[in-house]
């Protein structure tokens, strides 16, 4: 140190005095300037952060249709087209099928079927004292407009709102709030214009008739919200959350006969005359499944199926006869179908007791905005905040009305109307021409999912992958099954990617070397192609297992909630809790489209893949509030459609899971299609509604039989629902999977299952496969006293399925045949058989 100091001194000696002075000055300036600059930079950063719009999410407008203007006022009626306030029932529209009348005073719509004179009211008629049977009770008081109940029942529109952008989220009938209503005549109907005083909100609802349909429209251009005041924060103003139109149209009391047709899972019925517990919340589900960006839940739900089609039906027996089973003899039917706004619609079912009302009601609620949770600190309270942007464009819902004195209706008729509507919608929306019979008649009999492997939770010497089935096993299994008499098998490879099933989807798509070399993989695909085997590669597209990689970051590739947090994908433990130990995220659809889609398709084609199963596209829709590429649900769906088209151009066959309606026109196959409904207390019976709609349009396979708790029951159910069966198998023992995250299987070892697979293959080959491309024309319970059901196909074939354990003989009233069973089983009666 001393030496150093001396050295410096020596150097200084050589420098002139004025130089030293100059240096000292520079040093002094530096000492002052540098801190000032640093402070200014810091202040600038803080200022920028504090004043910049860091989480400004700017959505594109595609998919949010807002082109429809309010319908023109019909000035030939009323005064300047506006209805007088004090009129009674006024006929506002009429055509060959329907008459639409409206009472401005009573807020009552009456739709009359002109052919049969059947009348439908926008809310049920009160029970008057006159004409009451002994012991009956009048409920006129409930309609008193000075009470909340009366205001609620008679409201033609329910409005969800928040007054301050964060509190409430109340849903009230319009009549419960101060408002100014103006009623205009428009072509074929009326427009209700509401000016909500407290909410500082205006909107219009158009209700018209077209042929035998009642049509609701909510033009987004008619919604006017107050602008933000200068002194007010933007999202603290009153905001519209949701609108439901004529929610009590088709509402019934529990004394009436009939049911709702609910497209939950495969489909369900809610009977009116089933007494039920009243202290539960009303049934409420998003069409196309929950939005994981908003619908956070602390505990996972079980057997919670998706509403895959934006439709419902009301089947009623005006005479009051019939039993509470699926064969209710009905003479009127309403079929409701969403033409626009399906991506953000909630299907709601209220049962008697809810809101102290004695009615069953079913309707769609259109959500213009969602709430999200905002937590300021770890221990702080969570606040409900509302997103700023409206996520929905124009809404259009059509309700077809069918009545008949002679014919009877059932959920089958509802399904057939929905089927036609869907085909029209696919054509109009996507330009896809889909028709009945477009399903493949030569479809493989059974889908055998071969689970290849998953990473260990931890550990492993060189490779952390637990290999359950390798490429050679795949061929061996197929060959053996083929020799055993099950050659027409569709093979779906699960977990073939690098690192197995839970591969990181932000990395490049490639097969894992633990199953064999890349050459082996290509050979396998070639082998399948050469032998004409439909071998499909299962693809997780949008769930990111692990931290994003390969240029993807949390910031640029992961879905964010509106509260700026990244949306996690939660895995469910075997004991029914969410597991927080895995870093799983959901990928931004836009990121996938921009960065990964093309490469994924290219790689798959390079490997020689012909068929792909695409996860998420048929069963998982969500919003994305990532600033870099935000999307609303409808926009996500539009992306999916584009991807399905892209995949469709490159591959022979596409499959999606579950089968949400928007995906169906683009795929050949649906895998894991439900054959049951959710365990909601309001759903009384399950029906093959989805199957009645899709059968003949697309081929579908049910969930793997070996993962079902009641395999025999499930087998029969698959037969009844015209569903080809599936298995999920591994070459290795299932217990090998325990220390992986794929621990939900409890029975998958091929050697234990092969004989059973062949047995069920033969059953499916006989009872399901021959009808795979035919329309499912009817489905009914053969006898009220026994669990024997019949499914009829367009060629006249009837498939009877019996769930009774003992000997049963039933007579099918449609053909007078008596069918006998020795217990659980099925019988096929082909066309021409008497």
């Amino acid at each position, binding site marked *: 140190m001393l030496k150093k100091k001396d050295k410096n001194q020596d150097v200084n000696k050589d420098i002139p005095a004025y130089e030293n002075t100059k240096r000292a000055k520079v040093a002094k300036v530096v000492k002052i300037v540098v801190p000032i600059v640093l402070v200014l930079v810091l202040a600038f950063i803080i200022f920028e952060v504090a004043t910049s719009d860091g989480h400004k999410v700017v959505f594109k407008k595609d998919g949010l249709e807002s082109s429809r203007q309010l319908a023109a006022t019909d000035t030939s009626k009323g005064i300047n087209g506006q209805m007088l306030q004090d009129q009674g029932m006024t006929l506002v529209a009429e055509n060959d099928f329907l008459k639409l009348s409206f009472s401005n005073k009573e807020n009552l719509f009456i739709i009359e079927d002109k052919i049969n004179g059947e009348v439908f009211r926008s809310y049920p008629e009160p029970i008057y004292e006159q004409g009451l049977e002994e012991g009956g009770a009048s409920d006129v008081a409930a309609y008193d407009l000075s009470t909340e109940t009366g205001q609620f029942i008679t409201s033609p529109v329910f409005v969800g709102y928040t007054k301050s952008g964060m509190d409430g989220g109340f849903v009230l009938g319009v009549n419960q709030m101060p408002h100014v209503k103006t009623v205009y005549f428009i072509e074929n109907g009326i427009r209700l214009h509401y000016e909500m005083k407290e909410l500082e909100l205006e909107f219009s609802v158009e209700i018209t008739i077209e042929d035998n349909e009642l049509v609701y429209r909510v033009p987004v251009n008619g919604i006017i919200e107050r602008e933000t005041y200068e002194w007010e924060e933007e999202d603290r103003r009153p905001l519209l959350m949701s609108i439901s139109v004529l929610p009590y149209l088709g509402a019934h009391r529990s004394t009436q006969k009939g049911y709702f047709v609910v497209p939950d899972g495969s489909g369900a019925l809610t009977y009116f005359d089933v007494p039920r517990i009243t202290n539960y919340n009303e049934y409420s589900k998003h069409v196309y499944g929950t939005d994981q960006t908003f619908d956070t839940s602390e505990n996972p739900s*079980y*057997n919670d199926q998706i509403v895959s089609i934006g439709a419902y039906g009301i089947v009623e027996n005006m005479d009051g006869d019939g039993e509470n089973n699926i064969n209710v003899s009905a003479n009127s039917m309403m079929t409701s179908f969403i033409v626009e706004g399906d991506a953000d619609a909630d299907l709601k079912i209220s049962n008697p007791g809810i809101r102290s009302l004695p009615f069953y009601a079913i309707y769609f609620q259109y959500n213009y905005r969602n709430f999200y949770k905002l937590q300021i600190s770890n221990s702080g309270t969570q606040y409900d905040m509302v997103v700023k942007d409206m996520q929905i464009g124009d809404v259009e819902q059509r309700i077809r009305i069918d009545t008949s004195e002679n014919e009877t209706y059932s959920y089958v008729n509802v399904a057939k109307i929905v089927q036609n509507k869907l085909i029209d919608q696919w054509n109009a929306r996507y330009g896809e021409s889909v028709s009945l019979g477009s399903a493949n008649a030569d479809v493989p009999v059974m889908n055998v999912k071969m689970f290849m492997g998953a990473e260990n939770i931890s550990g492993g010497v060189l490779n952390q992958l637990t290999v359950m089935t390798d490429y050679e096993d795949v061929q061996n299994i197929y060959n053996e099954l083929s020799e055993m008499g099950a050659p027409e098998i569709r093979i779906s490879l699960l977990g073939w990617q690098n690192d197995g099933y839970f591969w990181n989807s932000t990395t490049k798509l490639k097969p894992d070397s633990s199953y064999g070399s890349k050459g082996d993989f290509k050979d396998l695909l070639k082998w399948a192609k050469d032998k004409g085997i439909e071998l499909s590669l299962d693809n997780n597209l949008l769930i990111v297992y692990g931290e994003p990689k390969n240029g993807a970051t949390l910031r640029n590739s992961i879905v964010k909630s509106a509260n700026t947090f990244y949306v996690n994908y939660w895995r469910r433990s075997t004991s029914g809790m969410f597991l927080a130990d895995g870093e799983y995220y959901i990928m931004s659809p836009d990121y996938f489209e921009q960065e990964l889609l093309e490469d994924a398709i290219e790689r798959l084609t390079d490997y020689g893949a012909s068929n792909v199963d695409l996860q998420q596209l048929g069963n998982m829709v969500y919003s994305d509030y990532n600033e870099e590429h935000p999307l609303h649900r409808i926009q996500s769906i539009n992306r999916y459609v584009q991807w399905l088209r892209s995949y469709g151009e490159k591959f022979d066959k596409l499959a999606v899971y579950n089968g949400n309606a928007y995906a169906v026109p683009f795929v050949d196959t649906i895998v894991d299609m439900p054959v049951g409904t959710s365990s909601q207390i309001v759903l009384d019976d399950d029906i093959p509604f989805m199957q009645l709609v899709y059968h003949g349009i697309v081929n579908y396979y049910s969930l793997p039989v070996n993962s079902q708790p009641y395999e025999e029951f499930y087998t029969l159910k698959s037969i009844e629902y015209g569903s080809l069966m599936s298995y999920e198998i591994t070459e290795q023992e299932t217990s090998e999977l325990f*220390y992986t995250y794929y621990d939900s299987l409890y029975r998958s070892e091929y050697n234990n299952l092969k004989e059973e697979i062949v047995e069920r293959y033969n059953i499916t080959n006989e009872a399901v496969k021959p009808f795979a491309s035919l329309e499912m024309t009817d489905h009914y319970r053969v006898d009220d006293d026994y669990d024997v059901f019949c499914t009829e196909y367009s060629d006249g074939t009837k498939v009877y399925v019996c*769930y009774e354990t003992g000997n049963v003989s039933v007579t099918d009233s449609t053909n007078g045949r008596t069918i006998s069973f020795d217990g659980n089983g*099925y019988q096929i009666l082909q066309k021409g058989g008497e």
Partner: protein
Amino acid sequence: MKFKKFTALVLMFSMIFSMGTAVFAEEPYPSYILNTSDYDTYSKPIPAPYTTLTVIDFNSKEAGKLSNPEDMFIDDEGKIYVADTGNNRIVVYDSDYSFLFEISSTGLYSEGDLSALKEPKGVYVNPDDGAIIVADSGNSRIVEFTKYGNLRYSYPKPEDELLAADFSYQPIKVTKDTRGFMYVANNGDSNGIMQLSSNGEFISYYGTNKVNLSFWESLSRMLWSREDRLGTVVTLPYTFTNIYSSDDGYMYATTTTETPPQVRKINIGGSDVIYAAYDFRDMSINGYSQYNQVFCDVTVDKYNNMLIVDRMFGRIYEYDERGNNLFAFSTRGTGYGQLSYPISIETDNRGRVYVLNRSSGNITVYEPTEFANLVHEANSLYTAGRYEESMVLWEQVLERSNYYTLALINMGDILMREASLINTETANTSGGSGTEAENPRADLTEAELYDMAIDYFYEAENTEHASEAFEEIRSIFLRNHFTTIVIVVVVLLLVWVAWTSIKRARRRKYGPPKERHNAWTVITGFFKRVGGVMRHPIDGFEGIRYENQGSYLDMFFIMLLYGLMTVAGRYAVSFIYRGGTPLSVIRPVSVFFYSLIPWIVVCVVNYGVTTIMYGEGRFRDVIIGGAYCHGPLMFLILPVSLLTHVLTNNEASIYSILEMLIYLWTVLLVYFCMKGVHGFHPVKAFVVFILTALGVAAVALLFFIVYGLAVQMFDFIAQFVKELIYLA
């Protein structure tokens, strides 16, 4: 009438039981078995053991809606008795869930109407005469009705010198044993279950719970006098929430504690039989939840399996007589088959399970599935000693659920039993009754059977049973190969003696061998140096400091070998001694690097301490010397691990002692290293040793504090930025 094609294919079911009809494709709840392996405390999936048969909704029944019902009883005929607490009545339904009658009165007990009930919270039906006994909680009495609902007896608050003057009597549950004694769970009574005579007189308290003291409470009791503890909260034993008297004379009870013993099985003498120390918490839930389970009722089915219901998560757990978990299923919720607020559980003689939901006032009825029936049957055959028949069914259970570890353990036990009977007259019948099927393993040897058994235990990850099987295998091996082993040992000894004699003779004759330098001598030289320091640490460490005998290369290889041996040791330990830990969960890279951390920390701390203590060692000497201290671990950790392959659980002490000796040797080397490298006096070296140890502890503490603060700081910054962004 003619079918063009008429196919009648009846599905043949391989299972022995037929299925019910009202089933969902998927149950709205999880179904699993609590893991019985030693390694993992979590759950494994199984097929649904019970399906929801129906939800009895009393709105539709003649008697109308239930209001906050608290208890339920099902008699031998399947009749359901519900204590409809909020409606002050007992409601009775038949086995088809149709209303039969109710016991209620418009009068008041206080006004002399003895049949008037007030908030009845418990109901029990005497199997002998059908008498309905009610815990009439609001009227502070037990009341007995005939099976038709007519008043028979009223047992008011008991009086006894054992009961305090301010004794509060609010019976919430009541039951009777086969001897006619009544047992009453009294609300808030920490003295135990009240035992009453058949005419309602108090006899004694029964099965009193113990006081559960925390560590600090126990410490304060030890250190403080009674006077000192005056004013502190008195800890009382937990009280009982529900009681159930089984046909075989046991009393099952649930308590208010959330820690063991939440559920008890008490014998006639008031002692716990099997569940005393069992922690009924479901760690697969608790591992992720801040809430503990609350077990509110217990019942016993026709197989003597115990079913308990947890109110917090809506789970039902079934245990067999031996305390094995058979199933766990159901969940809280409002779906069909989910439990909204379970308060009482019962079973009937059809095997159905009934759960009363208080808030919704309904009963969820579950029916056993084929899988549950199979397990019940297999387990009851096993318990009855009909092992071969049980074995066949357990195999079917395993086919249905590869994870069902109880099946594996029981099958292993059956094989062990068969093996122990080899060479006896009963070998072919497995020691069971004469009705059993012929044993297909009759041709197998004792050793083969034990080998098969241990494979099952390995798969079940059960070390206790695996150790027992291994002990037998080992003894058979020793028995069969004793002579060979002795011969081999003797031969090896002779070879060793001969070899050393020859070497000594050659050295005497030709002098010491010439020094050679090749790869072999480099390797042996390295091991000799490490071994030399181990055997002569004083000279060895001084040599490192003062004669430059150590080198960085040696240090590198010692630590590399030590790390590798540590990893190898982890893999080499036998299944029994690694507690069932599957090899697949070992992280070799982490194990390797973690093994180096103590060396780095100790060296840094020691260098710091010795710098201010005037130690002469350089940092180079400290880290090289420190590496040499790992000699015993490097040489011995793997052999000792391998030794576990010949040891059973009973010889765990041998393994522990050997492990302890290795570590002791290492610690001694550390001491001598400090002494030799720094040239300290033995006493000063000891002081430095202690200070180093304290320093290491301080560093660890500091690390955790800094880590914790850093996490907090980052979290604060993150929250701050998020708040700014949000406000922006």
